[in-house]
């Protein structure tokens, strides 16, 4: 049975132009650009948690922001329930759509307005979307949203300000704010990386139950492969603005097909002192995204690179059922 597609990215590209001095703009013919995201396409199905993993600077966050139209793509389209949202130019039309697409940011110390009370923070999306008629209803909805995140009793939190809360509580407020509209699609950009270990797992648990309850589709962006494995149904591994490999989480972790995925998994420390780890074979760091290497972008660090990799860019092809890899010599 084919699953319904919630959101689809088609050939998304985002290039950020680099600021240059006045004289340089006169001399140079072309403005150099950072190739943040370079022609990626993928689908997220209804009710699915899709993870994007990769090192910093690989374009995961930019992709996430483009999916909900917070960053305008240089080219390419995003379809939300079959509707091309990149073509929507009027803000008021976009605002209607925002009811169904929300984002949870990485840093709860930055993403909550310090001058707004918790009640107003969580109520703001409801007010903007005109979802409630009476103030009692608004109050009820906010209280329910807070309770969903174990912030009970809600009255105790509603009248506080963000600075009175701990990091974990703040992030839960940010999650409550995103879920209060019951959106169909959510983006979470490293939602727990700023939190302490003991709080982290609790927030993740709450997030998983909420996703299940609201049947939302979810894009989970993280650099932590082990965490992605815990959270996601399907994974996309990104490298320098491209998707290197995409497939169901367990298949990808158990038997990676792209050398980069293999290296990324091998690099994750294992909480078991008796297990022998595979040595990291790849050297160096991610090359600059201003002049990405020709051919396969990973060839400069790939231990298996051959001549063809340096000239010809591999396509993202389906090599096994559901598994797509962009490599000339998949493992």
């Amino acid at each position: 049975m084919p699953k319904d597609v919630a959101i689809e990215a088609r050939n998304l590209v985002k290039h950020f132009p680099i600021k240059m001095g006045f004289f340089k703009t006169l001399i140079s013919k072309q403005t150099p650009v950072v190739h943040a995201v370079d022609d990626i396409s993928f689908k997220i199905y209804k009710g699915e948690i899709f993870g994007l993993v990769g090192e910093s600077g690989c374009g995961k966050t930019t992709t996430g922001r483009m999916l909900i139209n917070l960053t305008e793509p240089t080219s390419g389209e995003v379809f939300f329930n079959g509707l091309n949202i990149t073509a929507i130019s009027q803000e008021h039309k976009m605002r209607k759509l925002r009811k169904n697409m929300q984002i949870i940011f990485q840093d709860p110390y930055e993403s909550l307005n310090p001058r707004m009370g918790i009640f107003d923070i969580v109520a703001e999306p409801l007010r903007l979307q005109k979802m409630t008629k009476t103030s009692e209803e608004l109050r009820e909805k906010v209280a329910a949203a807070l309770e969903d995140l174990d912030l009970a009793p809600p009255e105790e939190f509603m009248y506080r300000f963000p600075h009175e809360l701990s990091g974990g509580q703040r992030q839960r407020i940010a999650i409550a704010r995103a879920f209060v509209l019951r959106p169909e699609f959510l983006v979470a950009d490293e939602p727990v990386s700023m939190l302490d270990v003991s709080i982290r797992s609790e927030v993740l648990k709450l997030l998983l139950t909420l996703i299940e309850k609201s049947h939302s589709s979810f894009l989970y962006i993280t650099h932590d492969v082990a965490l992605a494995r815990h959270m996601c149904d399907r994974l996309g591994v990104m490298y320098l603005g491209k998707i290197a490999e995409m497939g169901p989480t367990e298949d990808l972790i158990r038997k990676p097909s792209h050398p980069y995925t293999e290296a990324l998994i091998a690099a994750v420390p294992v909480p078991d002192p008796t297990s022998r780890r595979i040595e990291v074979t790849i050297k160096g760091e991610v090359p600059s995204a201003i002049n990405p290497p020709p051919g396969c972008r990973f060839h400069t660090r790939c231990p298996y690179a051959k001549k063809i990799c340096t000239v010809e860019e591999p396509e993202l092809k389906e090599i096994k059922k559901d598994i797509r890899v962009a490599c000339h010599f998949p493992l």
Partner: protein
Amino acid sequence: MSLLKVENLKMYYKTLRGYVKAVDDVSFDVGKKGAVGLAGESGCGKTSTALTILRLLPWNAEIISGSMMLDGMDLAKISDRKLRKEVRWKKISMIFQGAMNALHPIYNVGQQITEAILAHEDISKSEALERASELLELVGIEAEKINRYPHELSGGMKQRVVTAMALACNPAMIIADEPTTALDVIVQAQVLKVMKELQRKLDLSWILITHDLSLIAETCQKTAIMYAGKIVEYGDVVSIFKAPLHPYTKKLITAFPSIVGSRRELSSISGFPPDLLSPPQGCRFHPRCDQAMQICKTEEPPLKEKTSKGHYTACHLYGG
């Protein structure tokens, strides 16, 4: 043979509202060529312990009692001058948290490493420069890069420069405070590899401070789990990871998702770490412990060897 032996160390911060018991009765030892990991949540006293060892403390900190024996010297008692001349950098050096961002932006790498060497050793500038390039090669950076400025280096390289700098005066031990938190996984694995190699090549001892237990499993032989200023479990990594005793350790180990093995539920610890101004009576973990008994509320469990030799835990569950 132990190199550093910390016994019953207590360090409190004096504040207007009373003493903050940041390090409370902490004992552990670091062997020659050994690596000890200090783990725990933020605010549990890991960094304070490290700063106490080098006595790099703010004015309101007070070492209440305890000893830190290193080569027959008690670091808690020796004079400031002796500590500065003989211990810091030469015996123990430290890589601070976020040190890679503390490199001076307008001096090149070579100048910064030689500054450390020249301040502590009586050698000429050219000798110091030569030593600096050797150090860089040791941590896997080409010696030509000695004239580079910090902004020309990537995060992983800066972390290695800082590691090289810590090695400047041939210390016997390095204390590394969260050395890889800001780095990407692959770069983190590279830095850890360098650390392990150094331990082997130079007979170095390490104290690794981190909240990530898997880093300790990868690099250390022994580990101390800290909670609210106290060590709750201490022993060699294998027995702690394979057979953890303290409820806190158990939860901490299973709070991390793993890349190997089957997918399992993550455990979470409800509540928050206690305020160290007035920590709870009895066992400090009892308000958050799901196995807490009556005795836990009143009596503080001592750190004792329980089921196997060399595996210490402070918990009433395993008898007095």
